[in-house]
């Protein structure tokens, strides 16, 4: 199947249905890229161990407006909507593949064991829009900063995007310091995003940064001379600025 779309990834620093109940801005932005009246969206909750409550929340959020399904690598024979049979054929015919949060190391380990890393690369090349938050953002990059167990550390991602990535940038001050130190020590330069900010890549290049919160930020982090520079990126807030101002006032 040819979608006519270029390869695209929308990487959330945090946010979407699992972190921002009642704020659909980031999820709606992704759906708008699909250009389909009823987009086919498949949820991949591997990083959470296919947590039941997470899968339920996905269906609650998307099943009215989208054709929904999910991939379970732990409970392949249980649950309505779980893909059975040819996973590859199913994923390659979606409009959006939405990857949930959790542990990026567990995510990549399980995907590689099931050959999903290869399938997702293929889906991306064919124009299936890949998106996700947290671990579901980190996984697409060359290198990713994770602080899941113990101190922050750098892991190799799938490498679809030749950059590094750091998520929840506003959440934990030590992550910010560590990320800059890592980049100074030779980790691939890359992008950091706050909760509520999403990096939209077309091909391998950053096209746009959008946000579901008026003050969410994103940064390009790269070495310049002896220093590591954190360059703020222009962020388009997806909500109604006027209305929000009134709401605050």
């Amino acid at each position: 199947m040819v979608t006519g779309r270029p390869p695209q990834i929308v990487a959330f620093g945090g946010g979407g249905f699992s972190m921002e109940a009642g704020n659909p801005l980031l999820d709606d932005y992704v759906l708008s890229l699909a250009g389909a009246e009823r987009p086919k969206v498949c949820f991949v909750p591997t990083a959470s161990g296919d947590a039941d409550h997470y899968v339920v929340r996905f269906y609650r959020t998307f099943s009215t407006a989208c054709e929904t399904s999910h991939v379970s690598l732990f409970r392949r024979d249980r649950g309505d909507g779980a893909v059975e049979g040819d996973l590859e054929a199913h994923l390659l015919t979606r409009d959006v593949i939405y990857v949930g949060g959790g542990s990026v190391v567990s995510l990549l380990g399980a995907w590689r064991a099931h050959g999903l890393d290869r399938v997702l690369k293929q889906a991306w090349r064919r124009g299936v829009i890949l998106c996700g938050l947290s671990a579901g953002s980190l996984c697409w990059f060359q290198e990713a900063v994770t602080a899941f167990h113990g101190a922050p550390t750098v892991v190799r991602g799938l490498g679809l995007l030749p950059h590094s990535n750091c998520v929840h940038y506003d959440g934990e001050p030590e992550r910010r310091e560590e990320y800059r130190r890592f980049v100074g020590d030779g980790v691939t330069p890359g992008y950091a995003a706050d909760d509520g900010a999403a990096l939209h890549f077309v091909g391998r290049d950053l096209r746009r940064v959008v946000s579901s919160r008026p003050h969410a930020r994103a940064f390009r982090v790269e070495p310049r001379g002896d220093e590591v520079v954190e360059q703020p990126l222009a962020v388009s807030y997806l909500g109604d600025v006027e209305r929000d101002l009134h709401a605050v006032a």
Partner: protein
Amino acid sequence: MSIRDALRGAPTIFAMGGGGFTMEPDNPALDDFVLSLVDQPEPRILFLPTASGDPTAQITAFYGRFARRASATHLSLFRRHGSARSLADIVLEQDVVYVGGGSMHNLLAIWRAHELDDLLAEAWRRGIVLAGLSAGAMCWFAGGVTRSGGPLEVIEGLGLLPGSFSVHADGEPERLPVWLTAVRSGELPGGWAADDGVGLLFRGTRMVRVVTSRPGTAALRVDAIGEELVRHRIEPELLGADPSRPPTPAALAVPDEIRELRELRAAMRRG
């Protein structure tokens, strides 16, 4: 070396064909047997629910069974626990590591991604008891038969124990022929099959004892000699049947203050 390290014995694995708190909510015999393998005043037991993706129900059942009997914690590889401690620090201070059932394929892949496979081998060499059921039992052997991906298939394990292991011999009888075929063809080495409720105890790589929580169950030893299979049925000891041998010496000998500490901890967990 700490006193705890000094008290540790030979490398020990307790492999259950099925049973324990996830499968036998009303029968603590196998889990008590696991604790009886530890000669520590306040045994530390760590649950790894990785093979099922850390489901809450399984974790809750673990605390329900062990919180009053031991110092019980679990390690999630999917949810952040907020601790800055390394996996090595967490694993190597335990007396028992207890591995739940689920997908062996996912279990091994995720352990390897976290380098927990090497860490568990190190724990075993140090005398930390490794226990588990189903996928959490087969993983210690050279291989077994899994249904991680739907149909039954042969899978390679970590190989701490040289034989193969097949689980749920009575509960899922379709497994046995797949295992026997694999042993006959040499795809898997000879080894053991165990019914639900049956556990095999290994000291070093030697199988020393077979116990069960259910009467009428058995284990099977199978070897391939040429193309022929040689089968040998093993009658397990029924746990709790001999009153002169209480299954829970550790639990019975708990001093009051430790019992109080456990109750406090359990109450805090319940919030």
